[in-house]
């Protein structure tokens, strides 16, 4: 099996908000940094974020401070958050947004010329900094500008498939150059995982194509702990129509700016569920409210609710929600005049690779940041906290990786493991018979959407678990790429992703079965009323290759759950 080996000090896997920030930090330490991504630089999922980034600057509401941000984050997360991690988030966010400005970000301003801040769900103050409703794009563009100033070597369209671990320490990754199909081994002193989430394991999702959970799969295989995997945020407002746009996000900023939810009778139904906070209730709460309306026959014609912003002055809508205007224009709707139809969509993974305050994992030299990590957001992530996460922990992971890289030298890598990995990938191309990745993926995403969704119940989830075990055993080893070509072959890319999707889906479903009560985004219709659920579920691959799960105590520093 032919492959090339490429050396670097720090390898960053992922080039979204977290990956880029980590790479920049690493390069600032005079180290040789390589950053990998499946897509071209700048096209990562982060560019799709719309609403904004939470930072308690107090520019609009002077009484805001990190303390309140912390409180909102923990209560929003249903007390499952790792409070040590949350403390760092709220403390560092301000400095990180200034970093972004130093690099050239252009956020919208207050009349005094400071960064403007808008209200977002479940937050005590107007805290969310923004650039119209294209904040993620603003951040992504800024980070790309910054990357182009640094010495970071960008290897985009390179797919990492396996983490290499030598004697319990990280030593590199196996990867495939998607453009030309070459096999590559990157040997690094330290590695940062910043691979994003896995919304794409659900058939209806707001996520980009790349978010399939490679990072979760690779980390699991390498022996990392993964935490809170059952906690999936379903965003209440995804697009319903047209079919091809189904699941695309309608930013929370629409409700933040004053948008209201209506059922088919024209009733503002949030009165019924959360009269104090109305549309700005938690995402899980709003999602369940919408679904209840739909299930009880008060939904819109295409199975959603109406979201209207038509009562606001057009100029405000045009200035603050420009992408939404564009997005619905494509669907033939003028949101300045008409309501949008919305329904929930799989949006965010609260869970992920378990990390400590230095963004470290249990594998020495392996760090992680961004959506691929778990613990910080607990049972539910506040809108605007994910972008803050990418910047705060992106920087920390980069710095930790740099410190670590400076203290060690390259480890050897096991050639047998490498050859075996590339043979596995090659086999997908050479198999005579087998299952097409597209079919396999279709089955998996439907299964997850049907059975492990917003309203969960034991038998559904158990069914999903059984199915996933079967898929893992029977389908994964028989994936066959239709056209055996290595040069830019999306069929092959999908096949490589599929195993990671299955591992990720299994962790989600198995953990969901284990959690018997409702908590945060995990809502059971058959919840055990006696279970408070104040624990985290941690998953790891056991010595025998079986998935091991255990409940762990919460990490509490300041706020004790009620």
């Amino acid at each position, binding site marked *: 099996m032919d492959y090339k080996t490429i050396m670097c000090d720090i390898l960053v896997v992922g080039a979204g908000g977290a990956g880029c920030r980590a790479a920049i930090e690493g390069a600032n330490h005079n180290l040789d940094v390589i950053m990998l991504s499946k*897509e*071209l630089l*700048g*096209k*990562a*999922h982060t*560019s*799709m974020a719309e609403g904004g980034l939470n930072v308690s600057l107090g*520019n609009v509401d002077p009484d805001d401070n990190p303390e309140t941000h912390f409180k909102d984050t923990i209560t929003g997360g249903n007390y499952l958050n790792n409070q040590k991690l949350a403390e760092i988030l709220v403390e560092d966010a301000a400095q990180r947004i*200034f970093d972004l*400005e*130093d690099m*050239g970000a*252009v956020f*919208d*301003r207050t*009349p005094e*010329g*400071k*960064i403007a801040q808008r209200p977002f769900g479940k937050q005590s103050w107007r805290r969310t900094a923004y*650039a*119209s409703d*294209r904040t*993620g*794009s603003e951040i992504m*563009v800024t980070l*790309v*500008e910054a990357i*182009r*100033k640094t010495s970071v070597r960008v290897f985009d369209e390179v797919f990492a498939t396996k983490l290499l671990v030598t004697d319990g320490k990280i030593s590199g990754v196996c990867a495939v150059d998607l*453009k*030309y199909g070459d096999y590559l081994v990157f040997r690094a002193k330290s590695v940062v995982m910043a691979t994003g989430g896995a919304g794409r394991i659900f058939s209806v999702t707001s996520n*980009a*194509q*790349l978010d399939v959970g490679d990072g979760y799969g690779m980390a699991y295989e390498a022996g990392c702990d993964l935490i809170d995997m059952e906690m999936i945020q379903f965003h209440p407002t995804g697009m319903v129509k*047209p*079919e*091809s*746009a189904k699941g*695309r996000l309608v930013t929370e900023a629409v409700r933040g700016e004053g948008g209201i939810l209506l059922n088919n009778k024209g009733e503002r139904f949030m009165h019924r569920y959360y009269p104090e906070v109305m549309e700005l209730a938690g995402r899980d709460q709003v999602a369940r409210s919408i679904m209840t309306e739909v299930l009880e026959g008060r939904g819109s014609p295409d199975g959603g609710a109406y979201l209207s912003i038509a009562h606001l002055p057009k100029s405000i809508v045009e200035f603050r929600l420009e*992408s939404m205007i*564009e*997005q619905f224009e*494509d*669907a*033939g709707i003028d949101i300045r005049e008409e309501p949008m139809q919305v329904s929930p969509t799989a949006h965010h993974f609260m869970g992920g690779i378990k990390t400590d305050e230095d963004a470290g994992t249990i594998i020495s030299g392996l760090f992680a940041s961004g959506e691929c990590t778990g613990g910080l957001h607990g049972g539910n992530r506040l809108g605007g906290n994910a972008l803050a996460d990418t910047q705060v922990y992106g920087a920390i992971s980069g710095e930790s990786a740099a410190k670590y890289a400076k203290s060690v030298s390259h480890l050897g890598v096991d050639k047998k493991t490498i050859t075996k990995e590339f043979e596995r990938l090659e086999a997908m191309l050479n198999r005579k018979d087998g299952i*097409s*990745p*597209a079919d396999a993926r279709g089955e998996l995403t439907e299964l997850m959407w049907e059975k492990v969704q917003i309203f969960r119940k034991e038998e559904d989830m158990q069914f999903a678990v059984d199915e996933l075990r079967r898929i893992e055993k029977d389908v994964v080893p028989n994936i066959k*790429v*239709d*056209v055996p*070509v290595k*040069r*830019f*072959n*999306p*069929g*092959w890319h*999908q096949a490589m992703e599929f195993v990671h999707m299955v591992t990720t889906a299994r962790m989600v479903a198995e953990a969901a079965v284990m959690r018997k009560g409702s908590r945060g985004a995990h809502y059971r219709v058959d919840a055990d009323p006696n279970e408070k659920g104040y624990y985290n579920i941690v998953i790891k691959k056991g010595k025998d290759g079986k998935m091991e799960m255990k409940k762990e105590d919460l990490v509490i520093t300041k706020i004790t759950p009620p």
Partner: protein
Amino acid sequence: MTKTIKTSVLRYNPDSDDQPYLQDFDVEYEPGMTVLDVLLYIQDKFDSSLAFRWECRGGQCGSCAVRVNKIARIACRTKVEPDEDLILEPLEKMPVIKDLVNDMSQTIHRMRRIRPYVARDTKPVHPEIIHADQIEKLREIRKCIECSACLSNCPIVHETWDYPGPMIIRQIARLELDPRDVEDRIAMAMNEAVYFCTTCKMCEDICPKSIKIPALAVELLRAKAVEAGYPLDPGQKAFLDEVNKTGRAVTVKDTPLLEGLDKEEFLVDNPRGRVGFFTGCLIDYRMQSTGKALIEVLNRNHIDVIVPKEQWCCASPAFRTGDLKTAHDSARRVTEIFEKASEKYNFDTVVVACAGCGKTLREDHYPFIEEERGTPPNYKVYDMAEYMLDKIGKENIVPPKGEINLKITYHEPCHLGRGQGVYEEPIELLKLIPGVEYIEDQYKNRCCGAGGGVRAGYRDLSQQIANSRKAQIEETGADMVTTECPFCTIQLNDMMKGTEMKVRYIPDLLAESYKKGDE
């Protein structure tokens, strides 16, 4: 019944194919379908190895640019029509990796060459105070998602990478507009050939974020360059000096139209309307017969035509090259002349038969005057063909009777189509002429290379662009190419020298048909 869309995709795997080839697929149409949906359908149903890029499916990431029926578009925001065939090809200029996937390394290299980040010479203090009005323009051109679509169809990039293309010139403007950036971006823009752009607006038309690159980047940088004291090219300067001296961008050769006319009013019995005629420099000084033809055509269609004797250049060359003083002086003067005439002769409509003048009156004078004095000019500007078709109405146009038995194609002036939104009207006019066999040129909206001061300042480049355009026009097999801009006409005449291809200005041809019909 389900409709199918015939989709041809340019396939290419350089490992195994000698040449790219088109492969056809039948795609089931669904309402609201985008080009990306079409590609995903093909990938799903027919060939999972079909290579193209996408991520967000919502115009946010900039991955999915491809050429759709010859024009670069982002696939995820381009709707398909149920009864239109599709040809999907990779972007131009960048080499192909496979199928619709381009190698972007040259583009990235070109981007890095401009040091595309905010450069600072001191450490910022926090919080940095930046007021909303300081970033208003910047915010507009900041929306770019680096999809590179605009690079693909830029006529200048097509000829040379000496020009970095719309996406990157926009980035220079973005940095110039950033109050925090300390680099001399004007010097950089000069070094990066900012004067090569013909302001053809192709990039603006293509841009999924509708960024007005020619106005907000190119012309802005040029204006700042002029302000900073960079001299214009002597070829361009000569025009502007003439404008300031005489009100005309060119020098007199034969008796100018306005001098030759014995009156200002050309009135008819029972008029259905009355318009002022803005001649522009070339019709006045170089194409007198065309000017007369135009008055005649309008008169024949029962329109009173007022031709104010005192006219002034719209100063398009000054707007385009960044000499804002000349530009604004002219805008004021033109407005004054035509407002006076409109009061004296009681008209509220001005007809222009030059694409460049029309665009300048509409897109440059109008907002400038409005901003300066609070109210825009009190007259409405129409292109000649637009006026005839949309105001007079096709059913009311007196049909020309003289046969012109030729295969005729049309070159769409950039500043008429994309500049003023006049696309079909000139073709409709052509089709009114008996005998004309209209031949569609799939590249009709490509720049001829004359505009933006390029013909005046960079003749070689201008000719290169013209030659690319020439090949496209000749490919149609037409006997004659027509257009509706004097400037394009001159350029087309030059490019077609020594060939069989005739070049005509549409109002001329129309007048000819009327005359023939009289005989």
